[in-house]
Every structure is written in structure tokens, then in C-alpha cells.
């Protein structure tokens, strides 16, 4: 069964009288357990597509299904629930909550899900060990390196065991060695845990490591 399916997806941004078409007629199907890359140059619409798939933004036209549930007709409360329970996010700029330490940033998602404290702590610790961060769990984001911050973001994305993890240019703010290490980690999690990863990138080295790739240009998928 496909985990993601889009039908004629389109996104248009309006700034005053100027209209920017970010996505045009995007039809895409991603199967569960895939390691999927959305590749393309800057401004091609990769991030917009990920945001729409992740229910962070609503498309201006077309439909999008997550496990056959139509996201375009869901209420904002339902979308929040879907983001919480079914999707994990890894952002290009990490987007950790600055006042929480690494442990608490990861714990936050489980807390929203109402997971009991003991189980929560156990799972957070497991996730942080999984991403290789057991030694700096009480450090706040500002006290972590870029690579460590991105690993915290990955731990946060996987801790709730979502069906889908969306990663927007996850290696863009990392040096090549740290970026390659992060990709190793994501591939490992994909293979061991069966989590579906969809990530955007413009780096050909990263694209090579994806199982399937969709190329975007000017908001359209190139055949």
C-alpha cells in the first residue's frame, strides 16, 4: 500500500499582485518503507512539496493522501494529530526548541502523545543512543554542534515511531563528513525499523544513496 499519494498537486503563492507557482500538477506515489529522494535545484519546489506532504501547509489545488486518508479535507486539529502520530520531521535548520535540552526536545513529542513518564524516558534514551548522542543528552541546542543538533532532530523524528519521516535538506547545514554520517544513520534506521524516509536534496552525492528519486524542476516532476 502506498504511504503517500498525490493527485495533481499544485501550490501557488501570492505576494500582492505577484503569483509564484511553486508546484504544478505533481502526481507522486511513495510506498511504505521507501528511502525516497526529491531532488532538484534551489527554487524547484522541493521544500514546498515536503511541507504539503507533511501537512504543514495546504496545497492550493489537488489532493494528497497519507495512507489513503485525504489530508486536503482534514481539519487543522486532525492535521496536528497526523503530524504528531504519523509523521516525523527533520528540518534543514534543525528547528530544535531552544529552551529544552536534547533529552527534552526528543521527549516533547512523546509528551504530546501522552506516553507515560517511565516509558517516555526509556524511549527517549533509546532514540538518543540510536543516533549516537548518549553523552550529551542534557545539553541545550546552543551547546551542541550542527551535526549533534541534526542528530537530536532525527531522534525527535523517530522517537514516536512514525510511519513516515520527512527530511528537508537534512545535510545542507553539515560538513560533508557529518552529512555522510547522518545519511548512514538514516539508511540504517530505514533498513532496521522500516521507517519510510522522504528527503529533499540538491546534492548529487546524497541523491545517489536514495532507493528512489523524483526530480523536480520549476515545480514539476521531470520524467
Amino acid at each position, binding site marked *: 500500500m502506498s504511504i503517500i499519494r498525490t493527485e495533481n498537486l499544485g501550490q501557488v503563492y501570492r505576494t500582492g499582485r505577484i503569483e509564484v507557482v511553486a508546484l504544478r500538477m505533481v502526481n507522486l506515489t511513495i510506498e511504505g518503507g521507501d528511502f525516497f529522494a526529491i531532488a532538484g535545484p534551489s527554487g524547484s519546489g522541493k521544500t514546498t512539496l515536503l511541507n504539503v506532504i507533511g501537512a*504543514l501547509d495546504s496545497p492550493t489545488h489537488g489532493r494528497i493522501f497519507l495512507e489513503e486518508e485525504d489530508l486536503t479535507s482534514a481539519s*487543522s486539529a486532525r492535521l496536528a494529530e497526523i*503530524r504528531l502520530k504519523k509523521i516525523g520531521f527533520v528540518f534543514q535548520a534543525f528547528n530544535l526548541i531552544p529552551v*529544552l535540552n536534547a533529552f527534552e526536545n526528543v521527549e516533547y513529542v512523546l*509528551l504530546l502523545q501522552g506516553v507515560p513518564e517511565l516509558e517516555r524516558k526509556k524511549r527517549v534514551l533509546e532514540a538518543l543512543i540510536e543516533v549516537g548522542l548518549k553523552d550529551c543528552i542534557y545539553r541545550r541546542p546552543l551547546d551542541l554542534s550542527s551535526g549533534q543538533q541534526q542528530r537530536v532532530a532525527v531522534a525527535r523524528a523517530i522517537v514516536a515511531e512514525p510511519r513516515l519521516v520527512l527530511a528537508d535538506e537534512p545535510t545542507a547545514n553539515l560538513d560533508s563528513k557529518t552529512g555522510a554520517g547522518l545519511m548512514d544513520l538514516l539508511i540504517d534506521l530505514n533498513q532496521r525499523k522500516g521507517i519510510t524516509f522522504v528527503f529533499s536534496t540538491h546534492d548529487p552525492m546524497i541523491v545517489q544513496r536514495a532507493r528512489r528519486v523524483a526530480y523536480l524542476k520549476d515545480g514539476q516532476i521531470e520524467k
Partner: protein
Amino acid sequence: MKFFIRMAWRNVFTNWRRSLLTGGSIAAGLAGLIFIWACVEGTNEQMINGYVDNLTGHLQVHRRGFYKDRDIYFALDDPRSIMAQLSRFPGISGLAERIEGKVFLLFRERSTDAVLIGVEPSEEVKVTNLWKSVKMGRYLQTSDTSAIVLGQDMSRQLKANLGDQIAVVTQAADGSVGAARYKVVGIYSPRGSDAFGSNYAFVNLNAARDLFALWGRSTGIVIRANNRYTAYFLLNLIINMLGTRDFEVMDWWQLVPDLVNSYNMRKVFAYLTLLTVFLIVASGITNTILMSVTERMREFGIMMALGTRGYQIIIIIILESLLLGAISIVVGGIIGAGIVSIFNITGISFNPYARYLESGALYFPLVVYPLLTFQRLCILSAMVLLVSVLAAVYPAIKASRLRPIAAIRQVETI
């Protein structure tokens, strides 16, 4: 909830500059409101106490018809028996007989009309504190037969000093002309309101009886209650006992109607001023909190992206505001109460404006001693805390409705 409280606590202290700005505006606003209200209440208290403690006492009993014109023909025939009855009441701390009548005071080529009050010094000290306000010379003594104590303004008006002989002329109760000469033994100037300093002169009760031909009689009995607030209940008890056919029983509120009018008028203006200041403070607080929430749109966007519900965003923002507000009102309360305490001792002098303040029936004290009660401190603190929380409601609701990605990119704002 515990986690959200922890987050709110950390947010307040991590972003200390922002918190200092917001909290500072709340604390300063509260301190300002406390000070203004304390000045208003201090002025009112001084004004009332100036009269109650120095002149009227809490209650007075007269023969019916006396007080309106202070007409000595309406004197009490047997004041001692009424005092004996009153002395059995609980809640009364002092009773004193008085004779009050209108007179004409003369000194050399100067003259003025006044109300002459005859008091028994040993009894009067139990009902009023005028003896404490004698700034020059001394208060009356029981043995004095021809001594007078003048108000400072009256002595200035007559250009009479200690030791000078003042002539007093009036119409006595028997229809004759009452006249006497008294030696100025003291000049009083009550703390706070000295508006009555130009109207009243004091002599011994027996000297007043001789002057007004009221031997064995009095025009009134002054009563001091254990405190000002029980006077009203005492008033009703005494009315029930004496009846209203032959007697008029009045509390301080009725005894000085000009003061009450002035008090009410000033109260309206004071509360309007307080309301205006409160609105200014409230809009300042709203503005800083709005700015503070707007600055953090990205953070709220991230939280929403992770699945935080709209109502949870509202809780987080309001919790932070509540926490910051609570800390700020403690600080503002301490600062405000501290400032009030200092000025309660030193007073705030309005002497340079005396010319304007003493005119008319304003009864404005020339030195204001701000007064703060715990109850008022609590009311103001609660109001400011409520404003701090309410100020966060609008931006919190707006923040909760933003699209997560728009908030992260900060392309949408509240």
C-alpha cells in the same frame, strides 16, 4: 502541564532581556498605580481624619435643630444624664460635652467671625486629638478661665500672637450680648488638612457657658467610637435609644457635609485619573506582550509542526504570561509599597501650590502622606496580573491559528 510550566519558566529566564522589558513594564505600571492610589487614599484619609480626629469626633448628639445654624437656643438641658446613658454602650472609647456657637473675634483693628467651641480639656482629649496639633504655646487646661486656642490661619488673620488678648462678642442664650476677653495660650495647626484652622477657636467649657449664658447646659456631646468604621452601627443604636423627636444624632459623615461633597468629588476625579493611568499601563503591557509573542512565531511554528495543538500553544503562551506577570507584580508590589512607605513618613509637600489648594472648599492637605492597605495592594496586583494574562490571550489565539510553515518562515504574523 508540568512540562509546559517548566518550559514557561525557562523561557522567562532564558530570554531575560525580553522578560526584563516585559516584566519591567508590568512592575513599573503596578508600582505607579500603587503610588497613585496610595496618594488618593492618603489624601482622603488625612482629610477625614483631620476633621474627625481634631474636630468632630465620630458622632455627636445635639438637641434637635441645633446643628444646621449652630443655634445655641437649641442646647441640651441635661447633658450629664445623656452621657451617663451613653457611657453604658459598648464600642465607645470617649465622651465629651461641648458648647459651640458663632462669635465675632476682635483684636485691635482686625476682626473675624468664627465658631467658638467650649471644651472640658480632661474629657476632650478622649474624643479628639487637637491638643497634639498645638504648634505654638499650649493646649487648654482645666484650670484656665480666660484662655483661648486659635487656629494658625485665624491668628495670622487677626495678627494675634501668644499672650495677646482677644475680644469675643456674641449673642447669648438669654438674649443678652455676651462678651469676654481671652488670652491666646496656644496656636494649632493640624497635620494634613488645615482648612478648619481658620474657622474654629477653643476655650474652656465653663468659660463658654459664661459667654453664652448656658450654665449647666451644653450644645452637644461628642462621641469617639473604638474605630471610625463602627460609628455607623453605633449611630443606629444611639438613635434607637434617644429617639429622633428631641435629639439629632449625627455621624462624622453628616457633621461635615462640605467635606463629604469635596471627598466625593475628588474621589470621582481620582478614580478617573486612576482608570486613565490603568488603561495606559494596560496598553503598554499588551504592547510588550504582543511584541514578545510576535518575536517567537518561529518557535511556535516548530511546536505546531511537531503536533502541538492550537489550545496547547494558547496554554503555553498564557502560562508564560502568568508566570512573568506573577514575578513582576511581586517586584512591582515591593517597589510600589516601598515608595509609599517612604513618602508615608516624609510626606509629599504641596506647599509651593498652597495658594491654589487652600482656596474654595477643596480641603486639600498641603502635605500628602500616601496610604496603602494590603487589600488595595491585592486588588491592584490582581488587576495588573489579569491584564498581563488577558494581554496574552489575543496573540495566543492568533498564534494558535497560524499555519505551521508560515509561522516557521515568519511570513505570517499576528
